[in-house]
């Protein structure tokens, strides 16, 4: 039998029972659409997070106080006293590291900021002039923190865009005095809006000299030291040099954690890819359900067309031809469902992107390919049993059924 004729006969049979065909195509389509939309969601989340991290700045090496819990249990650490905190002097010492381009200490606390009777809670970030270049910030008004001695608590502040809008509205801001906690501080500049960030949103922060922040929060420790390596290839060098310098300053103990942005990104990437895969696998269960539905539909088709199968055998159809006919019909249902589901899924992903413009909800290519392949394979696999049943029917008994 010729391929075209096989397709023609099989599609004719499928169209001949529209309700049954529509139902199995729909079931398959829902399965494929679910995979496409859910993976678009998962992969969108992954890209969203990675983009946010990338916007922190590039070639970053971040120093945290304390031993990383993922470093494993170290008996040498267990018997020593509590780990030493990071200090501004630690940060200053890192200037010596040749692979380090720039660095900024970071001390963080929450406080109230008020102006002209308006008051709000804010995160105060104490740092130095280099922080702006390091985080790739831009200024909307005025200047950033002055280049001065890190130990000077100059009473100046740079406001995030949201804080500025909420406290000042349209009024002039540079040069005004605001109250942060119980201190009067002069506003020297305003950051250009950054948008949503991970964890801290710079738009809602107030940036002051590190010494001022430490005085406000009555501490001499740092939350982080942000370090920028000279270029991408020197990130690892920078990390080693930073570790070496700090270890020497902390009496040979490695009571700090140095993470590179690359490592964080890779971890998130792996985590979220795995998440997307898991979501896809769950969605694929609906494909298996669709496969079972196709099997039932084909079993009904075989029993309804028993007389026709008997006739085909009487007309000289080889059992293989009958097998091929029913398999082709099942495959057609699966393909139609996969194509429809793909289109529905893309429309769904498009809808997601419309609803959440910041969210890059594109289904990854591998997921689309996997969904369509799974649809085809389940269609054929679940179509096999009914098709074999048809091919093995006894011609005389089959013909005895009234058509």
């Amino acid at each position, binding site marked *: *039998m*010729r391929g075209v004729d096989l397709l023609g006969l099989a599609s004719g049979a499928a169209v001949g029972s529209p309700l049954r065909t529509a139902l199995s195509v729909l079931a398959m389509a829902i399965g494929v659409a679910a995979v496409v939309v859910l993976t678009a969601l998962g992969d969108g989340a992954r890209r969203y997070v990675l983009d946010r991290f990338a916007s922190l700045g590039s070639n970053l090496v971040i120093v945290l106080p304390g031993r990383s819990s993922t470093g494993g249990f170290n008996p040498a650490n267990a018997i020593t006293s509590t780990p030493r905190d990071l200090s501004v002097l630690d940060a200053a010492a890192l200037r010596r590291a040749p692979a380090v381009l720039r660095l900024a200490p970071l001390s963080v606390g929450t406080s109230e900021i008020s102006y002209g009777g308006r008051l709000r809670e804010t995160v105060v970030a104490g740092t130095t002039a280099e922080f702006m270049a390091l985080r790739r910030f831009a200024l909307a008004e005025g200047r950033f923190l002055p280049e001065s001695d890190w130990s000077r608590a100059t009473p100046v502040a740079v406001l995030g865009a949201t804080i500025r809008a909420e406290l000042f509205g349209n009024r002039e801001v540079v040069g005004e005095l605001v109250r942060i906690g119980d201190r009067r501080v002069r506003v020297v500049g305003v950051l250009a809006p950054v948008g949503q960030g991970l964890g801290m949103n710079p738009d809602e922060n107030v940036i002051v000299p590190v010494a001022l922040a430490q005085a406000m929060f009555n501490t001499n420790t740092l939350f982080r030291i942000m370090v920028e390596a000279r270029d991408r290839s020197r990130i690892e060098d920078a990390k080693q040099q930073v570790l070496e310098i700090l270890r020497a300053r902390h009496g040979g103990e490695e009571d700090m954690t140095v993470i590179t942005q690359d490592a964080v990104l890779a971890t998130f990437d792996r985590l979220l890819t795995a998440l997307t895969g898991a979501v896809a696998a769950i969605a694929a269960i609906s494909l298996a359900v669709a496969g079972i539905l196709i099997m039932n539909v084909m079993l009904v088709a075989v029993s309804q067309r028993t*007389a026709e199968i008997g006739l085909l055998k009487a*007309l*000289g*159809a080889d059992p293989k031809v009958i097998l091929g006919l029913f398999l082709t019909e099942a495959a057609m249902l699966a393909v139609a469902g996969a194509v429809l589901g793909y289109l529905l899924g893309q429309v769904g992903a498009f809808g997601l992107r419309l609803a959440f413009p910041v969210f890059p909800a594109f289904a990854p290519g591998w997921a689309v390919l996997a969904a369509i392949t799974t649809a085809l394979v389940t269609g054929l696999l679940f179509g096999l049993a009914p098709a074999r049943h048809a091919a093995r029917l006894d011609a005389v008994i089959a*013909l005895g059924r009234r058509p």
Partner: protein
Amino acid sequence: MAESAEPGAAPLIALRAIERTFRLGEDKVAALTGVSLDIGAGEYLAVVGPSGSGKSTLLNLLGLLDRPDAGHYLFEGRDVTTLSVHEQAAVRSRRIGFVFQSFHLVPRLTAAENIALPMVLAGIAPADRARRVGEALAAVALTDRAGHRPDQLSGGQRQRVAIARATVMQPAVLLADEPTGNLDRTTGEGVIGLLESLNRLGMTLIVVTHDAALAARARRQVSVSDGRIVGDRIRAA
């Protein structure tokens, strides 16, 4: 025993000591017992007998839709009882045509498509198919009904479509089980007339019938009773 159409030549069909027993749980039904029969090419043969005597079973065996439990069936000189299902399908496709009491047309296909079906299954090229469907439709005087579906045709017209379908592969033998069973007398006679005209063109025709008048029109009558051949008469020319 009746002679073959051409004495001395190998018969088209030769049955030797055929047994066919159906098992229904514990019971055994001997549908055919010790059936031996020669049928020559071009013969017109009627199989008669009471209900349940084994006529349909015999016809199904002749058409390779069923296998005997014992005995041999030589078709065109070749023992077809030992063929694989694939080889038997090939023989049915090229050499055997069936006409059924209930027509067995595919309801979603047009008359022309139903007639083309055996050629489609045999992988014959579409151009060739179209020409032969046209000829077959003309032969059964249904050219103007080519695009009609079975439910738009009368019983007689349906059976004529079925006959066109059974003959479009130009088989050696046409097997008809009660071809007029679902038709009124005049329509039935028209259908029998059509089958007889095909026989006059050389096609071997084997008709199972209850109808004595129809059976009497055949040149040779084989009577079956209780699974045995009990009579084999050739009408004087």
